[in-house]
């Protein structure tokens, strides 16, 4: 049996009498790029927050990097990276200061922190911008720095929440190159996105509708199953049946 | 799906204005916590000033240094203790001990009796007492000393029996406008001034700057909406809140605090409206000049509210200020509104008495509106 890096078994989360996540089951293997799709309000964000250790399940089970989401949330946090579109970096700190902070927080030793800082700056080609405030950098650079910062401690899984909003296709492509590179080194990438073409880059995807997983599998297989040409159409077909509406 | 702008129906300015004002009003109403404070602050302040705060000096702790107690010293000490102005706190045996009591803050006054007090009084016809006051707070010290002196004087008169001393001049005193000497009522116009300045200037400026911070301001500015509507739309809900607060203050003053009636209320409301417009304009000026909510709050609180309060005459008497500060107070709108409001509410005066301050306030308001308009236009261009 494969060791799943992320596993959900009848995972349920209720808020009062509203069931945001309804007994979902999914497994993600190491090194996979997993696309977590769904309309607003379908339960994506809630599920992801449970996986990140930010929220407790109401019932069912979720395991991330071998730790239980209910009882071992603190350990999960050490094993994962997280990047959201807006909030990963401190705008009023420089690039280097941001890297140093997060590296230190994730437990890297003083030596490693220094080493990582130079490495990331070089790798991203940011030598000229290293001492600039993050607020003053273009969005595309911010995103790449965010990803580097989120993975500074070589986590087993990195969660990406709508990471590529607001940039042009070329920048998006560059970002995905970073993701491929990380996945090839064994990191699992769990990404949610609105861009359906990005879904095609993923090894497997799942589509959430009304709190349940309506489809899960390889993009090509799912499209064939449902008789659609691409993931975009697949999404539309499934989302149409939704009764919940996002905000 | 591009929309042809020319094809959009022409929405009248008035309709747009109404829609915008309603949207802003909804935002204000939805923010329960802020609303709670904005409506509750005047209530709490009125209650505090009305029932808890007073400049009257009562229950001052005093100690007695009496090395040879006798009938008179004990009698006099008791008399002081009986008064509601004083609370007897203990005996001391030396001046050093007095210092210690003062340092601990456990007493404000020390009454020192010399030995043979009673004997001197009866056989020599005169004796001395020494009152030592902790003058850290000079006014209170002087009030406390005066009270004690008055009690001593009364005791002295009683000792002399019923003989009316020749050359006695009786003074009949009348306290006007405030017969019970409740230092309280002046705070009513003061609270009004403070609340209107806070609400009008700070809230409006913060509200507008928040849009700036979020970036939604630019969006609104490039829309077909007249920018004036944007500004007025932000101000109107706070104008309404200000008026509601004025009504709350009036209701509490008359209903709960027994402020003597007789004030010309319509006149008061009209003047309040004038002042509110002034504070709203101030808020607009601030919002045109700062970029962040935090700055708007800082400027409003420390830069505007505090000096306005200081120069208004509410907290500190203007006539006691050094000349340069008195001059400055003339250009501070709160000073004039405070004067107007107290003349109407406390002294029950009519328009004739407040023509001058009203004109000055109106002039300032117009000036502020002009500045707000100019700075706004500058930002747009």
């Amino acid at each position: 049996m494969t060791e799943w890096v992320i596993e959900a078994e009848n995972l349920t989360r209720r808020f009062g009498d509203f069931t945001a996540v309804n007994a979902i089951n999914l497994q993600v293997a190491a090194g996979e790029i997993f696309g977590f799709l769904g309309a607003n309000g379908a339960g994506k964000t809630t599920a992801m927050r449970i996986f990140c250790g930010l929220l407790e399940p109401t019932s069912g089970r979720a395991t991330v990097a071998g730790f239980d989401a209910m009882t071992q949330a603190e350990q999960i946090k050490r094993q994962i990276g997280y990047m959201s579109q807006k909030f990963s970096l401190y705008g009023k700190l420089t690039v280097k200061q941001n890297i140093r902070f997060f590296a230190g927080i994730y437990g890297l030793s003083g030596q490693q922190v220094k080493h990582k800082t130079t490495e990331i700056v070089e790798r991203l080609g940011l030598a000229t911008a290293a001492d600039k405030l993050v607020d003053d950098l273009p969005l595309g650079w911010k995103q790449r720095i965010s990803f580097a910062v989120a993975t500074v401690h070589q986590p087993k899984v990195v969660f990406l929440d709508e990471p590529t909003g607001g940039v042009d296709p070329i920048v998006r492509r560059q970002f995905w190159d970073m993701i491929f590179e990380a996945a090839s080194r064994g990191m699992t990438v769990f990404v949610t996105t609105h861009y359906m073409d990005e879904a095609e880059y993923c090894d497997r995807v799942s589509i959430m509708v009304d709190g349940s997983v309506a489809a899960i599998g390889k993009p090509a297989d799912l499209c064939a199953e449902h008789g659609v040409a691409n993931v975009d159409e697949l999404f539309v077909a499934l989302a149409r049946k939704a009764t919940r509406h996002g905000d | 799906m591009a929309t042809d702008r020319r094809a959009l129906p022409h929405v009248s300015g008035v309709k747009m204005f109404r829609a915008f004002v309603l949207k802003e009003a909804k935002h204000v109403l939805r923010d329960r916590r802020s609303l709670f404070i904005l409506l509750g602050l005047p209530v709490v302040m009125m209650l505090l000033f009305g029932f808890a705060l007073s400049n009257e000096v009562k229950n001052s702790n005093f100690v007695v240094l009496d090395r040879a107690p006798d009938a008179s010293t004990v009698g006099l000490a008791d008399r002081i203790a009986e008064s509601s102005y004083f609370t007897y706190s203990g005996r001391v045996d030396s001046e050093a001990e007095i210092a210690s009591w003062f340092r601990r803050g456990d007493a404000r006054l020390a009454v020192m009796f010399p030995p043979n007090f009673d004997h001197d009084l009866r056989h020599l016809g005169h004796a001395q007492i020494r009152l030592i006051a902790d003058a850290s707070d000079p006014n209170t010290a002087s009030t406390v000393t005066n009270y004690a002196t008055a009690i001593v004087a009364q005791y002295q008169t009683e000792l002399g029996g019923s003989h009316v001393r020749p050359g006695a001049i009786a003074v009949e005193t009348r306290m006007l406008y405030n017969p019970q000497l409740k230092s309280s009522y002046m705070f009513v116009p003061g609270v009004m001034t403070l609340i209107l300045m806070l609400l009008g200037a700070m809230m409006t400026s913060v509200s507008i700057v928040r849009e700036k911070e979020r970036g939604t301001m630019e969006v609104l500015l490039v829309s077909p909406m007249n920018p004036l509507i944007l500004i007025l739309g932000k101000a109107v809900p706070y104008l309404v809140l200000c008026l509601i607060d004025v009504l709350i203050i009036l209701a509490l003053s008359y209903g709960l605090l027994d402020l003597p009636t007789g004030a010309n209320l319509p006149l008061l409301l009209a003047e309040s409206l004038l002042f509110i417009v002034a504070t709203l304009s101030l808020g607009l000026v601030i919002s045109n000049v700062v970029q962040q909510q935090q700055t708007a709050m800082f400027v409003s609180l420390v830069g505007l509210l505090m000096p306005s309060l200081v120069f208004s005459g509410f907290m500190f008497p203007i006539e006691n200020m050094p000349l340069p500060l008195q001059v400055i107070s003339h250009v501070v709108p709160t000073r004039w509104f405070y004067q107007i409001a107290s003349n109407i509410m406390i002294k029950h005066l009519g328009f004739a008495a407040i023509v001058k301050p009203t004109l000055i306030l109106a002039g300032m308001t117009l000036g502020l509106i002009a500045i707000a308009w100019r700075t706004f236009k500058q930002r747009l261009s």
Partner: protein
Amino acid sequence: MRNLFYILQKEFLLIFRDKTILRMIFIMPVMQLLLIPLAADYEVKHIAIAILDQDHTSDSQRLIQKVAASNYFRIVATPVDYQAGTELMEQGRADVVLTIPPGFQRDLAKTGHSSLQLGADAVNGVRAGLGTAYALAMVRQFQTELRTQSPPALPSPLSPVIEVTTASWYNPHVYYPAFMVPGLLPILVTMVGAFLSSLNIVQEKEAGTIEQINVTPIRKHEFILGKLIPFWVLGMVSITIGMLVARVAFQLWPAGSFLTIYGFAALYLVGVLGIGLFVSTITESQQQATLISFFIMMVFILLGGLYTPIESMPRWAQQIAAFNPPAYFISVVRAVYIKGSSAADLLPTLARLAGFALFFNALAIWSYKKRSA
């Protein structure tokens, strides 16, 4: 606690980049300390008195001259009738109107007693009270002078006189700033400790960076300490600046020891930081945080004896005042500055402040845990 080091590094970097906070720390003390003590002179002096002389005799003239010579009063008008006198008060041009009735001198000579009328604009109770007290004292003096001059027509039995001498300790020159300034220093500290700190945390809430912190291995207590410690430092800095301004602008230096002041400040700050933290857990926006902090501070300060004395408050208010940390700190700073009180003198207050620090921080932590579950 390695994390704490990195967190503090980040916080201090951010604070130094934030112009508004820096301005508040430096400008606010200067403004408040310069403006308020200069303006806050409560001394009742130059009471505007109008004298209505209906007697026009040598005695009434002498009384008028006595008033004119006094420092407490300045004669602003001599109205011709009662109506005119009242108008002067209405217009705010006179605080007190002294009416010398017709027959004043005649009555004094014939019957041995006479009367005067004093009307006071009591809108400002303190001023009216002290004004009339001074006037009465003056009349008494006048009375004594008359008596010593012209011996009474009727022989009078010996009536005792108690002579009262007074002394003022600690502020003999009646220097008002000596009283005001030490009272303002705690306000500075309170604003930094409660207001700025809550604003800072709420800013992070609004920006969403707290969520980012939540996914990292940073523990909750590390986060809290990371917020409290920098503002504790800033609070101590602001009181230092305040004391320097007091020295430079008002020549005020504590009569007691600095250590006492700093010691109490350190403890007090922990308490108000707890308040700031608590406020940040119950608010969602900067605006709310500002309003609620302002509200809490205003209530504390008004009930704190800065503006009106605590002893004058009714029972229930005094009992509330017992739970008012700023009230204690204000009294402590004043006592140390003016009277040279030592920590030993103020031990009970020290204990109380410690109690507050524990209470508010416990409250804050409980609220924080509850809301970020």
